[in-house]
């Protein structure tokens, strides 16, 4: 291994103020220089000459570090106005129409499930799947739009979110059909499979998600370290309270589900678990996005 590179790198960085950024840059440069000297040595340079040449190619370290741009920082409102992207009229119209259609289909499907309107399980499932398709399309379509703060999502990923949304709503439709007619066991199986597929897809999409924010939003979050961080990252107590609350909700829910399943019929447990999911989501929304406690103001 070429050891000259470490000495030359130390010399090059001598006199540089070793901030965290400079240290990180030095390590990045080190690995790149080692790869470059290996390449030069493979073409016949001596180790010492290769190391010297690699360092020379790099140029002065001050150039690499650059100088931070100091300027007056505009307010969020100004930045927002400057970067404003208006939604496309066509997108607004089709989203509104599809949402209305989906809401109508869901309303009729619920009335059918409670046998206020005739339709049976097939009617419930058909309307539910139609609503799922509409909302899935709306999801993918929205993610494809460039907004004031975000770039349009790549098409494959946007379609993925749309499909996952479709699958989760369609699984609810299948379960609703099954609840209407408990002889239709295939519906429960299809519903379960769709729900699992949706959860898998959501997890994968969530885990592989990368930045989609525009540069001005990114910089804004650098300026205010707390501005964009979620509450659970800055307030551990809130995170653990959320854990306790949802634990209690689910314990009570599972107990109630078992009780109802024994006392009445087992599909009642699905209703209870659905309610538990909704409550958990509401607690999450309430706690995760709660305003910052005032104690941060005097820091």
């Amino acid at each position, binding site marked *: 291994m070429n050891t000259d590179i470490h000495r030359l790198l130390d010399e090059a960085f001598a006199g540089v103020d070793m901030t965290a950024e400079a240290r990180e840059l030095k390590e990045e440069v080190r690995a790149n220089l080692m790869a470059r000297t290996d*390449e030069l040595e493979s073409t016949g340079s001596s180790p010492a000459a290769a190391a010297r040449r690699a360092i020379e190619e790099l140029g002065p370290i001050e*150039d690499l570090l650059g100088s931070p741009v100091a300027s007056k920082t505009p307010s969020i409102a100004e930045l927002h106005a400057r970067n404003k992207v208006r939604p496309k009229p066509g997108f607004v119209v089709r989203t509104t129409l599809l949402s209305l259609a989906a809401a109508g289909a869901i309303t009729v499907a619920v009335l059918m499930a409670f046998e206020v309107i005739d339709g049976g399980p097939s009617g419930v499932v058909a309307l539910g799947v139609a609503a799922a398709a509409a909302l899935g399309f709306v999801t993918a379509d929205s993610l494809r739009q460039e907004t004031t703060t975000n*770039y349009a999502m790549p098409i494959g990923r946007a379609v993925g979110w749309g499909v996952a949304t479709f699958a989760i709503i369609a699984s609810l439709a299948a379960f609703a059909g099954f609840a209407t007619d408990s002889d239709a066991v295939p519906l429960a199986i299809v519903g379960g499979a769709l729900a699992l597929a949706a959860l898998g897809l959501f997890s994968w999409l969530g885990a592989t998600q990368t930045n989609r*924010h525009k540069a001005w939003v990114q*910089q804004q979050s650098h300026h205010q370290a707390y501005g964009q961080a979620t509450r659970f990252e800055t307030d551990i107590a809130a995170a653990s309270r959320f854990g306790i609350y949802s634990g209690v909700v689910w314990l009570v829910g599972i107990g109630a589900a078992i009780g109802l399943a024994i006392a009445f019929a087992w599909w009642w447990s699905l209703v209870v678990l659905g309610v538990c999911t909704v409550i958990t989501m509401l607690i999450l929304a309430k706690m995760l996005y709660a305003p910052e406690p005032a104690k941060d103001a005097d820091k």
Partner: protein
Amino acid sequence: MTETDAFAADLLRGNTDTIVLGVLRRADNYGFEIHKTIREAAGGDHEIKEATLYATYRRLEKDGLVESYWGDESQGGRRKYYRITDAGRAVYRARVSAWVATRRIIDTLLDVKDK
């Protein structure tokens, strides 16, 4: 460097951000390999300086167009890899279409007739 070379180098340098995004679009990569890819494509004559590239990585990362992570090499220095983000892909696509449109205009104005 002749005046023609300087003109070509300027054109290349003006598109450094997009070029780096284009290299990263194929796969995550680290500084040496990114530089090498550009060096080989440019044929050695008008290459983009390493110092320029380091500044570019930092700017792209600050703007959220790329993300970085350290590799797990067991020997030698650990490499800092860069990965393009969804925002980076969106910017890349917008820049490429701007480039294609501009190239057509310049070709027309300069009366270029190859192919």
